[in-house]
Each structure stands twice: as C-alpha cells, then as structure tokens.
C-alpha cells in the first residue's frame, strides 16, 4: 500500500462510524479483528513459508486469556497486552518443532493441535466454561470523557479495534522492511545460505512464529471485547483452516493480501448465504483455495496489475 491508499483507507475508517448504523459498525469491528488474525497467518506463511493450520488456537488462547484476566479486574489495556504475550508464548512452544520438522509435517502437527484445542479447552472448565462457553465481563472499559462516547460503546470498541489493528499493521510493515525482515525472508529463500551469511535461522523462525501468534492472540482478545461470549467450539479446526485458506487466497506476497483475505473470510460465507448456494461455507473456502492455486499463484492480490509483475512468491 502506498501513502495515498493508506491515507484514503484511514479517512474512510474514521468517517465510517458517522455514517453507518450500529450493527454494520460492529461487523466492521469484527472484520478488523479478522484482518489481524489473517495477518498473523500471512506473516508466518508469507515470510517464512511455514504452514500453520492451527492459528485459530492462538486466537482462542488470546480470547480466553483476555476473559480470565478481566475476571481478575485487570484494566483492559493491561489484559490485552498480557493476552497477546500469552498467545506469543504459545507460539514459541509450537514453533519449537518447526526448527527441526519441515514442510508438510509442521502443517500436520498444527492441524493436530487445532483438532485437540476444543476438547482440551472443555477440560479446563474453570477457564473456559466447558461445553457451555462463558461470558466475558468487560465492565469498566469506558471511553475517555473527551470523546463523549459514553452512550456509544460500539463506536468506542470500533475505535479501539482500529487503533490496535493499525498499530500491528505498521509494526509488521516496518518489521518486514527492516534488517530483521530481510533476514527472515532470506531463511525462507535458502535456509543454509542464510545460515552461512550469519543469520540465526532458529531465532528468525521462532521469532516470526511468536509475533504471528501474538497477533492472532490480540485478535482473540479484541474478539472477547466485541462479542463477550466465548465457546471453545468456535475455535475448532475448520476455523483455523479457514484462516489459513483466507490468507493464501488473499495473497501472501503483499500486506494488502491479508486485508483481502479477511474480507474473503467474512465475505465468502455472507455471499454464499445471500445467494443461497450452499449450506456449508467450507466447500466455498476449499474450492476458492483450489481455484487460486490453479489460476492465481500469488492470490487475489496477485491478479491486480500493480502486483502481477512481482516474482512468484511460492515456497519451495
């Protein structure tokens, strides 16, 4: 994204609460949160080539951490930071096999984790409310007085989501354009060559995994604020697979792909329901990914003329 599209997007995001009604604005907040979750997958798979089919569990860890931290009457901002850190730490643990295990095996391990997350979560009923789920107590999260938003909590939620997501976006962009970002990309292109040039491959992989998991964790924590009802069943393997699929369909070559991916994540089921085509959106996601693999190797973003000249972003 260049400066002008960025400014236009920001203006649109600021004007939006003034023109749309409450329900639609809440939907936009949800899209922002999903952008963050998809961006997490995007960062990991796009820059390191590691396949994680389990990013839904980091979203879940973020959400349930948030709920339990709020139970302890922590301020929302503090809880948000701690929840993010916990998801990041979970990411480090999951990243450990990725240092030794390559290619499809990591996809296998993360898919297994995604399958096991709901049953494990149900066992930890004290934190997750077992099979019934739990509510999140976000009381005390009031907007500052000068904004005069006391009667409009949904606008305040929207503003918070916007700021947090924009913050993560800037951070990711700057990270990728820095020395660290180049080091990470080098490990993807050729691990041994990167190691020979003095790049700590293990650190680069683990670090990227942690950041991407933390991002997903933030998304979960925000989700807990917007929709204060959580159930472990919502973080099952289809959720993780849809996140992954959306990121790949959107395109792994540029950050815009994560935005497109999130729009696809929300838009595909919506379009499907609107047209009354299928009962299960999974079929639409699967077919979408197949078509993208066949005709658009760089994702939907790769079809845009500006990006089509870029070299193929496939991982070998």
């Amino acid at each position, binding site marked *: 994204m260049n400066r002008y599209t960025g400014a236009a997007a920001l203006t649109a995001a600021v004007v939006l609460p003034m023109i749309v009604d409450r329900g639609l604005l809440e939907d936009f907040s949800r899209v922002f949160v999903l952008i963050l979750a998809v961006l997490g997958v995007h960062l990991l798979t796009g820059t390191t080539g590691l396949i994680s089919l389990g990013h839904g569990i980091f979203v879940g860890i973020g959400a349930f951490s948030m709920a339990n931290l709020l139970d302890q009457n922590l301020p929302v901002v503090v809880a948000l930071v701690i929840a993010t850190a916990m998801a990041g730490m979970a990411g480090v643990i999951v990243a450990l096999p990725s240092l030794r295990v390559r290619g499809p*095996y990591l996809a*296998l391990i993360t898919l*297994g984790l995604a399958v096991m997350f709901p049953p494990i979560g149900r*066992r930890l009923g004290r934190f997750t409310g077992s099979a019934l789920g739990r509510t999140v107590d976000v009381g005390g999260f009031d907007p500052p007085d000068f904004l005069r938003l006391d009667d409009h909590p949904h606008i305040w939620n929207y503003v918070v989501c916007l700021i947090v997501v924009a913050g993560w976006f800037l951070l990711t962009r700057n990270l990728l354009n820095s020395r660290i970002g180049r080091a990470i990309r080098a490990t993807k292109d050729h691990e041994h060559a990167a190691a020979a040039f003095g790049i700590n491959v293990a650190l680069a992989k683990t670090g990227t995994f942690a950041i991407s998991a933390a991002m997903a964790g933030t998304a979960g924590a925000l989700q807990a604020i917007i929709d204060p009802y959580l159930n472990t069943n919502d973080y099952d393997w289809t959720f993780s697979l849809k996140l992954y699929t959306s990121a790949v369909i959107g395109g792994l070559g540029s950050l815009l792909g994560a935005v497109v991916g999130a729009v696809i994540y929300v838009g595909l089921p919506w379009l499907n329901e609107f047209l009354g085509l299928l009962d299960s959106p*999974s079929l639409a996601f*699967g077919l979408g*990914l197949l078509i993208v693999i066949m005709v658009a*190797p760089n994702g939907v973003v790769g079809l845009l003329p500006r990006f089509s000249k870029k070299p193929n972003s496939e991982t070998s």
Partner: protein
Amino acid sequence: MDLFLQRCFDGLFNGAIYASLALALVMLFRATGLLNFALGEIGMVGGYTSLVMLTPAAAAAGGGGFVFPVAGTSLVSWLPGHPYPVVVAIGFGVIASALLGVLLQRLVLYRLRNRSDFVKVNATIALLLALAGLVTEVWGGLSQRYPSVFPDDPGDYIDVFGGRLRYTTLGAWAVQLALLLLLGALINRTKTGLAFRAITSNAEAASLMGIPVQRTLAIGWAVSCGIGALAVSIVAASTILRPGMMVTVLILAFAAATIGGLDSPKGAVMGGVIVGLTQSLVPGYTPFPSELAVVPPFLAMTILLMFRPTGLFGTARVVRV
C-alpha cells in the same frame, strides 16, 4: 489382568483402523511423495456412498427407526438388488473413493506436478476443506447408524482370560493383515511397485524410461483412496457415520504412519498398533482424561518427528542442498 487385556483389545481394534489408514498414507507417499490431508474426506465420500447403497429407499423416505433420510437413495433404488448387503455396499464405497481419488489426481494434482511442495500441500488442504463441505452439503450434518460386516451383538466375543476379544476386532485385523500382504506384494513384487519408486525419485527420468507415469499414479491414488473408504466403514460401524469424524482419525493415522516411518508398510501397521495401545492404555493407567486420549499418540509423533524424522522403520532421505 482381565481389565488390562480388555484395554489391549480395545486398543488393538482402534489400532487396526489407524494401521489401515496409515497403510493408505504410506501407499500414496511411496507412489507420489505426497502427504494427503484429504484422504479421510475422500474416504468419507465412499462411506456415504456405501450408506446410500445399503439403505432401502423406503427407509430413507422417513420411516424406520434410527435411519435419517439418506440423500441419493432414490437415485440408485432402480439398480437391481438395491438395497445391497453391507459387504457389497462397502465394495461400492471403495470403488467410489478410488474413482474420486483418480479424478482428483487427474484434475488437480497432476496439473500441479511441476509446482513446489508448498503448493501441493495447499492443494490437499483445499481438498480437505472442500470435501468436508461437500459431504455436509449432500448428506447433512446428522449422525447416521452404520451396520457392521462382522457380528457385533453384545454376546459376540471370545473370552480370553476374562478379556472380551470381540469378533469385530478380529475381523478388522483380518482385513488389516490381508491389506498388508496385498500392498506389500504390490510395492515390493510388481512392476507397478518398482514404477512407484522410480517416479518418486525422478518422474521425468521414469517417463523417459517408458514407465507409464499417469497410469502408475492413478493406481497409487486409487488403491490409497479405496483403503480410505474401507477404514471409514470400519470406524462408522464401531461408532456412527458423521461428517468431520475422520479428521481426528486421520491425525492419529498420520501419527501411526510417522511413528512407523512414512515409506514402510510394515512400519505403518506397527505404528497403528502403538498408537491404538497408547490411546487406550495411557488414560487407563494414568490420571490422563480419556476424552483427551488423542493427545499422547500425538505427542509421541511430534517428539519422534523432532528427533528421528525417519520413524522406526523408515529409510532416511538424503536431500541435496
């Protein structure tokens, strides 16, 4: 002692299921060098096809006990002899899955043969999602009862020192060992098996040597996916048939295949036994909760992948960098 035997027998029954799916995974890995995440769902299509073949159209229309309407029964009810006995119906299911496998290989994976491994894995992930959606779409999300081939009344067991060795367990293992022998012969004793190895190591050179690459790959996919349908019918008969049930089973089958070493049929069966026994003995003798029985084999797989990626019986792969 009798409780221990009972747990072992339960574990062995599950082990037979994991072993047969692991064999299917190994088979495809030998033929194409690919981990097929969609295998379980390809098998599900065959499982539901066999359900369609054995359900009378009248029962499907709404009557008859626990049977929910099964989509498609009216389409096949004109076939002579429909509804078929279970064994014949499973045969139809196996053929359906095998054909689907060949079709997917032709339409999707053969076109991706020159692309990176990343893309191929993505393709099987896409197929996993798409087929899971398709099965739900066509047959709905309800659980269906599925009959067993082997006698499975409460009294159908052999008493072994107090442990109940059920006929279904014996039957599953009979099928399993037959599969192992047939696949072992196919891989090690036939020209097709030799062709598998040639294609995996260098498809272009194999084609230049006159090996029919397309046909060999089709055989690999057909056999692997057919076994998938067989496994689904065993799982469904022991529990129920329900969309999405194969994902957990497939993860455990992957665990079995990896523990045994991905390119060894013998290893796959050993891996299946290990996974099945772990799954029943660990929650039995430790405070580990039984609904999380999938966790210990999964952890075993992860640790093994980290420290001995070739598994117990696999051959080490040498990669040129």
